[in-house]
């Protein structure tokens, strides 16, 4: 148990608490607009950036972040231009990212990179720079959501109505993608590139089961996200497991429980 008091675990925990707020919040906008795939795509592209960072000796998370932001612009463009092929182009970008990452990681074998940590998450590897990155990203996301929540709600609920209200829809779409890219790259070291999108989408999926108002869904996703991240990190710490896996399994468990409870309530009433 003394691991829970250790420096590196404390860092992971603080980082986890922060991404436990931001990742599920951004997930709401993706899930409600049926763009869940974007989370996966950005994380897979981001991992290619991380690999490049190792290869050229630049702070990997920053390169990953840069890659994710570029990809988010690209996806937004594709989404607009080829509406009907959006899914396909997303799949191509995603596999392209993984392909690039795998090649660069094998090229950089000599550097002895802990690839597993980036794919599945780790509580051992978070350093102070990572923590600062996460804190800055959290701050930016929270300021954006806090000041623009009502506009983001309108955009998510009814993009046409947002446009007719004179809201800069293009700007908001890019903003959502970029913020998502930031959150994902910042979360990769803790949750892992392969699993991070689950931290965005599953809490939002849970909120569809229980929330009746947008307000409630915002609160719900944060509670569920925090619960899964904090408990998941502790379990991972104590039993020395990959935190991404424990967090995601907990999220799935929460969702199943909510579904059963809802079903029970419907049968009961």
């Amino acid at each position, binding site marked *: 148990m003394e691991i829970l008091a250790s420096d590196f675990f404390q860092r992971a925990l603080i980082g986890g608490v922060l991404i436990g707020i931001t990742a599920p919040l951004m997930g709401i906008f993706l899930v409600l607009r049926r763009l869940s795939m974007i989370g996966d795509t950005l994380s897979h592209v981001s991992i290619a950036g991380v690999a490049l960072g190792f290869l050229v000796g630049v702070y990997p998370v920053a390169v990953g972040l840069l890659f994710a932001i570029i990809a988010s612009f690209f996806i937004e463009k594709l989404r607009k231009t080829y509406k009907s092929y959006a899914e396909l182009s997303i799949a191509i970008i995603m596999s392209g990212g993984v392909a690039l990452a795998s090649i660069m990681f094998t090229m950089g074998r000599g550097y002895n990179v802990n690839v597993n940590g980036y794919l599945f998450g780790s509580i051992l590897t978070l350093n102070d720079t990572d923590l600062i990155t996460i804190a800055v990203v959290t701050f930016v996301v929270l300021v954006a959501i806090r000041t623009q929540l*009502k506009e983001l709600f309108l955009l998510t609920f*009814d993009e046409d*109505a947002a446009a007719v209200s*004179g*809201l800069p829809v293009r700007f908001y779409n890019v903003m959502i993608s970029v913020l998502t890219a930031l959150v994902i790259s910042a979360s990769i070291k803790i949750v892992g590139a392969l699993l991070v999108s689950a931290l965005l989408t599953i809490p939002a999926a849970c909120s569809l089961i229980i*929330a009746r*108002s947008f307000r409630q*869904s915002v609160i719900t996703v944060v509670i569920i996200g925090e619960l899964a991240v904090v408990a998941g990190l502790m379990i991972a710490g104590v039993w020395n497991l990959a935190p991404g896996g424990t967090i995601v399994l907990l999220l799935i468990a929460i969702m199943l429980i909510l579904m059963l409870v809802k079903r029970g309530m419907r049968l009961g009433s």
Partner: protein
Amino acid sequence: MQNSTCHQDIITLEDVSFSYQNQAVHKGLNFSVKERDFIGLIGSNGAGKTTLLRMIVGLLKPESGTIRLFGQPVSQFKQWDRIGYVPQKNSFNPLFPATVREVVLSGLYSRNKLFRKITKADQKKCDDALHAMNIEDLAMKRIGELSGGQQQRVFLARALINNPSLLILDEPTVGIDSETQEGFFHMIKHMHQHHNITFLMVSHDMEMIRSYLGQQPAVESGKLKFYKKHSHELQDCVENDLTHSLRELRQQMESRREVVTVGDLS
């Protein structure tokens, strides 16, 4: 009364053409809507009514020609809170976690209200709009749980909450029960006659067009027809605010209903 300034152009189309991929929908369309006009737009299915309205509110760009709103080209137009628009269909995710109240309030979120918090006055406007469409009881329900007609009333309330000077309605009463429909027409007539509101409404309701616009509409396949009534002399109305009239109208409707009920008993 205040009729000196009433022939300002609200909507102008000059030589507007539009096609989807390869299908031409509009060719060289010209018309204008003046302040205090009530325009009924009639046409067969697929004639291009919805397409036209979507161009006017800036959701589609004309292939050629110019559309102006309040004298300004749509692309430069900024005062969107002067326009209330109810689309023909709303395709939102039925599981979307949003209450009726949240949706109606969102009618107030516009460019000039960025960074502004929702105020007590906004909540009051929302109450009035809900009241006018007779959906106060549904206010805290999730929008996806409502029937089609109830949802349509929510979107009408959302369009009305801003106290717009131009209302663009695409078949607003489809799926609405006849009582609410009657109340709604009563209300828009009042708004047209007593308040400075201009209407562009697509409708298949020939009876409404005939009784209010005083013309017998004729549908020709594939053609758009415009029927117009101009409300030159605004009749006195105590207040200027639209939400007032919503309240007042609801009261009128309710008192009329009471009269009917009493009549039935005797």
